[in-house]
Structures are given as structure tokens and as C-alpha cells.
């Protein structure tokens, strides 16, 4: 690997690990949020950036995983490390079902995106009717303490959550790096670039597309588990909402689809700027709902129009790095 990149990465890693020692609680919470979106964005990126399948319904996996793990904790006291397996299983099954239906019936592009939206929306309304999981009133899990690190139940200090998310994000980064260099990475990119040509080279595109969807869903499920135990409350209306899906994809699109650093950079830029705007307005005495979203929309608009490949590729060229 390029020495420059390795050096920069090491620096970044050190800074991230040391952050809780110097940061205020507010900055720490923002940093945790950035890492959350960086992670979720990486997971989504596997499906879209690597394999070229546009999913606008990733909130489905976050929601399923969150409710699965929170439900088990709420009703049976089963901790998240066990509950996560159910979450992964559910999301993998859901992803496999969507992928199978879509690819078997030749649905792609915009129709595929609409299909993913439909599944998420269907589930959103469905969960409103599941009384066992709280229904529309929401599911709340008890915050027993915030003083000590109880990793087993994911109850603890904000620093603990920060490090958990950091570990997830770092893990995702390494996993994606490995995937890109593997046969899967080559085959996925081939399918993304030209599916017909990929088939002519012996690639079973159905199988590999399924793999991308399933891997992406399974990765996203961990974000869902984290979401449940970090926020401690889940509402179908919120968790499965299409806005959640869009928030997940904003990072990779702005940072750069298909790249390793794109999702992370995009998440950082977006969260920092958005929070900056909210702070600015608050300082001016304005408390306006919806301003943050309008801002997201405008940034997205500008990026899609003028930086179609995202910020990272241009930035990388300027810095003299590659990939």
C-alpha cells in the first residue's frame, strides 16, 4: 500500500482513538454520529458502489435489526451480543428475499430502487401493528446506568458507545478494503460496469449480485443493533422512514460511491456542516425545523450536479493519492 496513505491512516487512527480524551460531550456525540453514518454508508456502498444496485430502502435493515435486538432485550433480557445474531439472520433473509425477487425477475435500475422503497414502507406500516414490539407508541429499553462500561449489555458512558462505533467503522473499512481486492470485488465492479460483458467472462451475475445484497444487509444490521442500544427508543415511523434510508446514502454519494474513503469523508463533511448550520442558527436565535434537511438537499443537489463522482476522487487527486 502507498506509504503516504498508510501514514495518513495511522495519523487518523491515532486521532480518532484519542478523541474522547479531549472532546466535549457534544463533540463526542457528533463524532459518534459521524462514525455511525460512515459505517452505514460503507455497508450501503457495498451494494451500490461495488455492485451497482441502487437501494433506497436500507432503513429496512436498520429497523429489523434494531427491533430484533431491542425486542429480545426488552422481553427476555437477552443482551445485544446474542440478539445481534438474530438481527443478522433476519436482515440477511430480508436482503436475500429482495435480491432474489428482484434479480430472478430481472428488475434493475429505478425499478429495483422502487422495490426496495416499497419493502421498507410496507414494513414501516406493518410494524405499527406489532403490539409485542410496542406498536406506533414505540419500544423503549431501560437505561440502567451511564457510568461504567457494561459492554455485555451495551449500557454505559458515551465514550463506550464512541469506541464501539469506532471499532465497527474501522472493521467495515478493513472489510471493504479486503473485499475490493478479492475476487468478489473484481466481479462486483465488473457487474457494475457492464453486466453483459461480465457474463461473457464467466461471471454468474445472479449469484454475485445476491452476495452483494446479502453482505450489505448483514453489515447494516449491526448499525441497527447499535442504533437501538444507543438511542434506547424505536418508533416504526422513524426507524423505517425513507428519510433514514436517504441519510444513509448521502454520505457515500457526497463522498464518492464505490471508493473506500468516500462514505467516511461524506459522513464527516455532511454531519459537521449540518451541525454547524444548526449551531449558527441557534446562535442567531432561530430554531427552525427542516433547515438541516433543506441543507442536506442543497448539498446533495450541488454534489450530484458538479461532482458526480463525489468529493473524494477530486480530493485524492489534489492530494496526490490514489483510490
Amino acid at each position, binding site marked *: 500500500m502507498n506509504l503516504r496513505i498508510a501514514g495518513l491512516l495511522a495519523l487518523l487512527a491515532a486521532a480518532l482513538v484519542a478523541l474522547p480524551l479531549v472532546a466535549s460531550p457534544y463533540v463526542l456525540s457528533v463524532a459518534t454520529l459521524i462514525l455511525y453514518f460512515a459505517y452505514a454508508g460503507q455497508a450501503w456502498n457495498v451494494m451500490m458502489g461495488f455492485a451497482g444496485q441502487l437501494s433506497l430502502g436500507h432503513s429496512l435493515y436498520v429497523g429489523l435489526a434494531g427491533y430484533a435486538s431491542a425486542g429480545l432485550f426488552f422481553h427476555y433480557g437477552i443482551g445485544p451480543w446474542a440478539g445481534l445474531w438474530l438481527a443478522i439472520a433476519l436482515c440477511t433473509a430480508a436482503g436475500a428475499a429482495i435480491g432474489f425477487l428482484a434479480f430472478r425477475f430481472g428488475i434493475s435500475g429505478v425499478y429495483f430502487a422502487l422495490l426496495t422503497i416499497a419493502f421498507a414502507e410496507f414494513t414501516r406500516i406493518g410494524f405499527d401493528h406489532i403490539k409485542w414490539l410496542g406498536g406506533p407508541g414505540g419500544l423503549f429499553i431501560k437505561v440502567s446506568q451511564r457510568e461504567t462500561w457494561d459492554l455485555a449489555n451495551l449500557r454505559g458512558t458515551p465514550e463506550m458507545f464512541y469506541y464501539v462505533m469506532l471499532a465497527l467503522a474501522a472493521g467495515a473499512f478493513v472489510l471493504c478494503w479486503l473485499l475490493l*481486492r*478479492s*475476487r468478489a470485488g*473484481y*466481479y462486483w*465492479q*465488473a457487474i*457494475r*460496469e*457492464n453486466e*453483459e*460483458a*461480465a*457474463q*461473457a*467472462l*464467466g*461471471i*454468474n*451475475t445472479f449469484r454475485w449480485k445476491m452476495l452483494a445484497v446479502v453482505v450489505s444487509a448483514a453489515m447494516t444490521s449491526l448499525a441497527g443493533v447499535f442504533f437501538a442500544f444507543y438511542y434506547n427508543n424505536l418508533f416504526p415511523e422513524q426507524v423505517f422512514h425513507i428519510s433514514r434510508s436517504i441519510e444513509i446514502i448521502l454520505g457515500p454519494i457526497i463522498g464518492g460511491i*464505490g471508493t473506500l474513503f468516500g462514505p467516511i469523508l461524506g459522513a464527516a463533511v455532511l454531519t459537521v456542516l449540518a451541525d454547524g448550520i444548526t449551531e449558527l442558527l441557534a446562535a442567531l436565535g432561530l430554531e427552525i425545523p427542516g433547515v438541516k434537511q433543506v441543507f442536506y438537499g442543497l448539498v446533495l443537489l450541488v454534489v450530484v450536479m458538479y461532482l458526480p463522482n463525489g468529493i473524494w476522487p477530486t480530493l485524492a487527486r489534489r492530494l496526490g493519492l490514489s483510490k
Partner: protein
Amino acid sequence: MSPLLEVATVSKSFRGLKAVTEASFDVAKGDIVGLIGPNGAGKTTIFNLVAGVFAPDHGQVRFAGRRIDGLRPDQVCAAGIGRTFQIVKPFAGLSVLDNVTVGALQRAQGVSAAKRHAAKIVERLGLGAKRELPASSLTLPDRKRLEVARALATRPQLLLLDEVMAGLTPTECDQMVGVFRELNRAEGLTILLIEHVMRAVMALARHIVVLNHGEVISRGAPEEVVRDPAVLECYLGEEAEV
């Protein structure tokens, strides 16, 4: 010795339009066969039938004695047939080397082995200097070379070339001919090519099959075919450069 590829009375219609009607021909192992005919004769349809893009309505396609009609394109590739496309389909966002590596992964054990094999093929096709460039930045002749390199990387026994010479200058054309001749001679690569550029057909093909309106109207050695009155008639009005 039985032929490597047998196309046995295949027919294919598209919504009532008969593209190919009871076409039969063989390709012997180690041979170079040219498939020629006017536009719309059904040549690419036959390629697509062999390559598994669609299945014939009637008839069979056999490869190394095994039936392959009805298989998916990736299964056909796994069986040992590589193909290029008339309109090149490079993986635009990937480098030249990565493009060919995708092909090499078909038979290689791992990514490093695939990369090594790909690098050799890239050199052979004269793209060595451009291996790290994105495929989107290549000129047309280079894209054609890339297309061939990628198909070759899958280590096929039979290579289907769909009008690879179109758009090339005579010099570039001769270069490509040289590469194919060498592959055929040194490695016994069997080639079936669709071509309009007669310069290439006459230089490469040891046998020619002529298609018109979806039917095989002539076959044999090049010298015989170009004198066949049926062939001359279907090309009437066209200047065939020999």
C-alpha cells in the same frame, strides 16, 4: 476427429422475423473459420446462439461433444468459449489490467495468480504501457485489443471474434492478424470470426462459411468461396477487397 464446435441446423426467429434458418457448420479444433455475409445475414445471431445469450428455437449447438445450447453465457464461458462484442464493452471505470484480471479470474486460483496471467496477456496484446490507465481513456483500436485480451484471459479453447477489425487502419489490422495467427499456431487456439474486412478474412481464415438471409449458402476454403456464384450474387454491387 470430431469437430470442436458443431452448429447443427439451428433456427432462431424474433417475433416472426426469421433471423437464422437451419444453419449448420462445424469448426475443427485448431482451425480458423471466417463467418461472412451481408449485413443482417444473421452472423451475430449465430454468435449469440453459441455464446448462450439466447437459445435456438430448433437445432443444437455442441462444443467438444457436449450440448451447450440453452446454457447461460457464463456457463458457456466456463465450458471454454470466449467472445468479444461487436460494440466493445470495456469496464470503463477499471484499469486495463483490472479489466483483463476479471477475465483471468475465470480459471486462475486467486487474485494474484489472475493478475500475473492478465499482465502477460496485456503485454502480448501490446497494451503493456497502458495497463494502469482507465479503460475509458483508451482509443478505439486499444479498446478492441482490450476486448480481445479480456476474452483471452479466460483461457478459452474457442475464441469468437465479432468484427474486431472494424475501424482499424490496415496496419493495425495486420497487427491484430499477426497476434491471432501466433495464438493459433503456438497454442492451438481455435478461432471463429465474423468479419467484413476481407483483408483480415483472407489472411486468417482457412475455411469460410457464408451466410445470407439466415441461411448458409456456401462453405469451404477461401479460394473456392470467393469464386462461388451464389456468394458473388449476394455481394453483387459490393466491392470485395481481396
